[in-house]
């Protein structure tokens, strides 16, 4: 986590998509992983429409070593988008050097070349057997790519919140997400070295 004097080590994350994709829950799990298992200060806020499914949905997490005064996000360090609409809408809130992570099947028009585009929803559907766990897959990938949170913390937090009887599927989703994320991170670091040279 990079630190500047002014922001007290603040790291801001937004998970966005459409209602029903489980992003508010993913935000709660991430906040729990960081706050309960990693001992950081966190705040988690959300915004969603009145619909149960569809409509824009987002979950914001602020993480800091120090006290968090302003609880909402101002400039994002990391943005996850599971729909084209959310990517178009929120890309402007991302810092210039911030990380953009998108679902490669849902977001076809990328606003920048510096994006991690990964097939979260299809992985969940094909490898776990249900698209319901796409939020866990993408959450694990977010943790792997950003490196803010250890694998154990995410797994523990996921299993704390997982409904009884779904532990296996959620564990599998976690593993797949980490694999996707680490792979993408490796590819990007190679690209960066090639570019720098």
């Amino acid at each position: 986590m990079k630190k500047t004097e002014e922001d007290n080590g603040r790291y801001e994350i937004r998970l966005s998509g459409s209602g029903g994709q489980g992003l508010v829950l993913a935000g709660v799990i991430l906040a729990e992983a960081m706050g309960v298992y990693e001992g950081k200060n966190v705040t988690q806020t959300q915004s969603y429409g009145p619909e149960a499914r569809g409509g824009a949905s987002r979950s914001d997490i602020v993480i800091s070593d120090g006290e968090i005064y302003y609880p909402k996000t101002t400039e994002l360090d990391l943005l996850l988008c599971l729909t084209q609409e959310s990517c178009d809408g929120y890309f402007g809130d991302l810092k210039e050097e911030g990380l953009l992570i998108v679902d490669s099947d849902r977001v076809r028009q990328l606003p920048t070349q510096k994006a991690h585009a990964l097939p979260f929803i299809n992985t969940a559907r094909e490898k776990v057997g249900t698209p319901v766990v796409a939020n866990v897959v993408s959450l694990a990938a977010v943790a792997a790519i950003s490196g803010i949170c250890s694998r154990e913390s995410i797994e523990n937090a996921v299993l704390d919140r997982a409904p009884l009887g779904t532990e296996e599927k959620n564990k599998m989703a976690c593993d797949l997400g980490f694999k996707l994320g680490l792979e993408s991170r490796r590819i990007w670091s190679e690209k960066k070295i090639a570019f720098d040279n």
Partner: protein
Amino acid sequence: MAEVETKRKKSFYKENVPLLMQGNEACALGALAAGCRFFAGYPITPSTEIAEILSRLLPRVGGKFIQMEDEIASIAAIIGASIAGAKAMTSTSGPGYSLMQENLGYAYMAEVPCVIVNVMRGGPSTGLPTKVAQGDVMQSKWGTHGDYFPIVIVPSSVKECFDYTVKAFSLSEEYRIPVTVLSDEVLGHMREIVKLPSQEELNIVTVPKPYEPPEWYKHFEITPDFRSPMASFGEGYRFHLTGLTHDEYGFPTASKTEIVRKLEKLRLKTMRHLDELTDVRVEMMDDAHIMIFAYGSTARAARQAIRMARKRRFKVGLIQPRIIWPFPDQIVREYLERVDLVIVPELNQGQIIREVKRLRYRHVKIIGLNRFDGELITPQQILDKLKEERH
């Protein structure tokens, strides 16, 4: 299967471990910790979680939860429960708080302890159900008719939602008065890490019982500190309750001295104890020329803003009241004499700024920063306002 059972039955109150919870959840747990055993309410966004959680937890501790037909009945029910001896609470948002005003006035007059949590949303009327506002600050002071002196608390974090709900119960018992907790949509739905204190660390006050025999008992006795002991219905003490202006026994009165004594009691029981009812966070005010006066979730933006401003060499500090009514006159006046600019950020078109202006000292400039589009004021907005004033 045994494991399943234990997972389901695990205790809801875990002391001293970090927990991620919402402000509304903290409010509900605070109420339980304070000894609340009766809740009557009507669900309304953004306060519904409080009712939802208490509907599950109250029966487990031997309490009662009732979903009423509306907010008028809700407050009537908690007044009844309180008179019968239970610590009682209701939660609502602006529209429900408006409906409660009539019976709230009854509770002030009949000196019934109870707690009302108002999770503020945009208004007037049904307004903006899922958006934040601070529009009910003046309503919480002047909402019902007549001359009364309420106690109103404004928390600003999830931990404070817990602590100040506990405090609201203690104050309501100590002063025999309804206490309003003004939370807001951001606080209610925001999640933060909280460590709940152990039961011994909580300072819980319960209204004292009368020590005299029942035949001598006066339900509204005027004591030297204006706080009267209280017997509950069914304990062998006979008393009369009415919304009409009454004597010390509770019977309607037309005697001028008794009317004056009653109304003075309603004022003095809070205004004589301003020291105990002042709860203000003062930050970086020692050398400050500029004061930010902020409360509730707006204070969070202000706390960030003063730190940003200090880095730019502005001498700025924060005054944040956590008990907003009675207004902390003395401490605000003290600092007003030392600054030349006051900024009052609020999520309304200027309510509490009137109180600060009432205390204006010489030519201190007092300006508002108002936002009412359903979003929180940002630290940058406060900083920009400050720069605009100081070029």
